[in-house]
């Protein structure tokens, strides 16, 4: 036995008192697993990733990625992005585009007294509040605007915190909103307050990731022709997502790692996935602030139901309480020639209980973007009774 093994055994004996009976086999002589061939280790991790496919068991996959560097590399390689697998795994999953083939079903719980909103991934088909926590938002009213701070940790909602994900800011009237990402959404992104003018190249990993606020979505609400008697019009300009993303062979930017600190950690893992040749075209110039080429979403117009005397949208059972806040977003025809991809509902939001709302989203938007857009629906006063 090497010195290292002996030292580990000794320290383990100290811990032994705290371990219960089932842990006995973990103690003593286990130090030689460290040189298990990579392909065998990969087999073990593959099995875990495959069997722990739903929450809460999926936490075991995250735990395996935290064991040590070599494990993290293997797990990160095994775990597929939500776009392909339909599964959320690491915190960064909430910032990656949803699945292409189906809507990911989530729900939002509102707490009026604390002015907070919690987003959960639904775990059952029923409209109950049984879910995996994803994001939390807290409303903060200011003299000229309202901010919703969005965080990965419900207990920690401060902007400077390492768990800060982004925010939604509304204008004074509550008619226009901007979603900000705390991390650069793609290479070449420019911040509104540029602390450093450094642009991040796709293939490079910068030693310091500019940590700030990157505008990624502009939302606006309008009354329609019928004024406040009719459903409002909603438009979302997804600055960080190209219109081509929804076409055949389209690609949406995907962040690869969550910056829990202001320093770029895990430098062996690039911040961005380089997905296909299409990315180079997209990244030829910064998109933020420019409307050309960005994906535009609009809400699907409800139909007037003469017998029921109300505006109706088919929410496929996912929304059960009528509310002006309910909406379905589809790709706007102005993105390009209309095709079947323009029929797909990309985001759907609606009330199912007093403080309970469902949120279903899919590619090319992420859970974070979807959440922020839904929050704007809470806030706007347009056409509210």
């Amino acid at each position: 036995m090497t010195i290292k093994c002996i030292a580990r055994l000794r320290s383990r004996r100290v811990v032994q008192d705290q371990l219960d009976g089932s842990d006995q086999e973990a103690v003593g002589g286990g130090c030689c697993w460290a040189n298990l061939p990579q392909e065998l280790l990969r087999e073990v991790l593959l099995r875990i990733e495959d069997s722990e496919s739903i929450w809460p068991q999926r936490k075991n996959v995250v735990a395996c990625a935290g064991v040590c560097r070599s494990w993290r590399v293997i797990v990160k390689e095994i775990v597929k992005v939500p776009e392909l697998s339909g599964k959320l795994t690491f915190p960064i999953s909430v910032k990656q585009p949803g699945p292409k083939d189906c809507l990911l079903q989530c729900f939002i719980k509102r707490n009026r007294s604390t002015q907070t909103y919690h987003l959960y991934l639904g775990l059952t088909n029923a409209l109950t509040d049984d879910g995996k926590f994803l994001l939390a938002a807290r409303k903060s009213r200011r003299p000229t605007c309202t901010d919703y701070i969005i965080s990965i940790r419900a207990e920690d909602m401060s902007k400077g915190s390492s768990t800060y994900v982004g925010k939604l800011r509304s204008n004074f009237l509550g008619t226009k909103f901007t979603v900000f990402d705390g991390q650069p959404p793609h290479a070449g992104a420019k911040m509104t307050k540029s602390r450093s003018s450094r642009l991040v190249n796709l293939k490079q990993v910068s030693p310091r990731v500019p940590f700030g606020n990157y505008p990624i979505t502009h939302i606006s609400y309008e009354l329609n022709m019928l004024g406040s008697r009719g459903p409002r019009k909603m438009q979302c300009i997804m600055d960080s997502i190209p219109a081509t993303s929804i076409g055949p062979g389209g690609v949406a930017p995907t962040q690869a790692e969550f910056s829990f600190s202001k320093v770029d950690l895990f430098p062996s893992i690039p911040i961005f996935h380089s997905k296909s040749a299409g990315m180079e075209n997209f990244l030829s110039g910064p998109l933020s602030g420019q409307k050309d080429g960005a994906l535009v979403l609009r809400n699907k117009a409800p139909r007037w139901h003469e017998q029921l005397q109300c505006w109706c949208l088919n929410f496929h059972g996912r929304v059960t309480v009528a509310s002006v806040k309910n909406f379905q977003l589809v790709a706007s025809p102005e993105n390009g020639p209309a095709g079947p991809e323009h029929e797909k509902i990309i985001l759907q939001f609606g009330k199912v209980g007093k403080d309970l709302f469902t949120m279903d989203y899919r590619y090319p938007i992420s859970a974070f973007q979807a959440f922020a857009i839904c929050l704007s629906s809470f806030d706007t006063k347009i056409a509210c009774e």
Partner: protein
Amino acid sequence: MSMAAVETKKITLRTADNHEFEVEEAIAMEFSTIKTFFDENPDASEDTIPLPNVTSKCLSAIIEYCKSHLAFRARETSSSIDEQVRTYDEEFVKARDNESLKELILAANYLNIKALLDMLNQAVADRIKNKSVEYVRRFFGLENDYTPEEEAAIRAENEWAFEGVDPDDD
């Protein structure tokens, strides 16, 4: 391999610690490494096959496993047989400590016994599921090679993953 083999032709295997095991041909053929050797060298007249990567303790356990599974396969398939196989596999693994489990995996990999290797890999996966990062590190004797900053990020990542779920019994 001589086609005029006597029914119970035996093959001798010599382990790393110089023990010799005589096994029936049928069992030796469960080791794909050995089967391949004989397939590619049909006229081989080697009486003893050296296995420098396998200890006697391991080999005797592996032989037992293959013998039992051969016997199971010889019987008619039924759900009760499946149940017996499952129970056998569970017992095979349960009593093994960490070190011998690992030795078995390496030996099964070397001898290329797919079913056994799959079963052992699954057993390890099951042992570390639902355990914390610290437990897995202890179990595998792995060093935490993260910087303090990275460790903090891992902790935040795990906090998010474990949020609202039952704490593990660790």
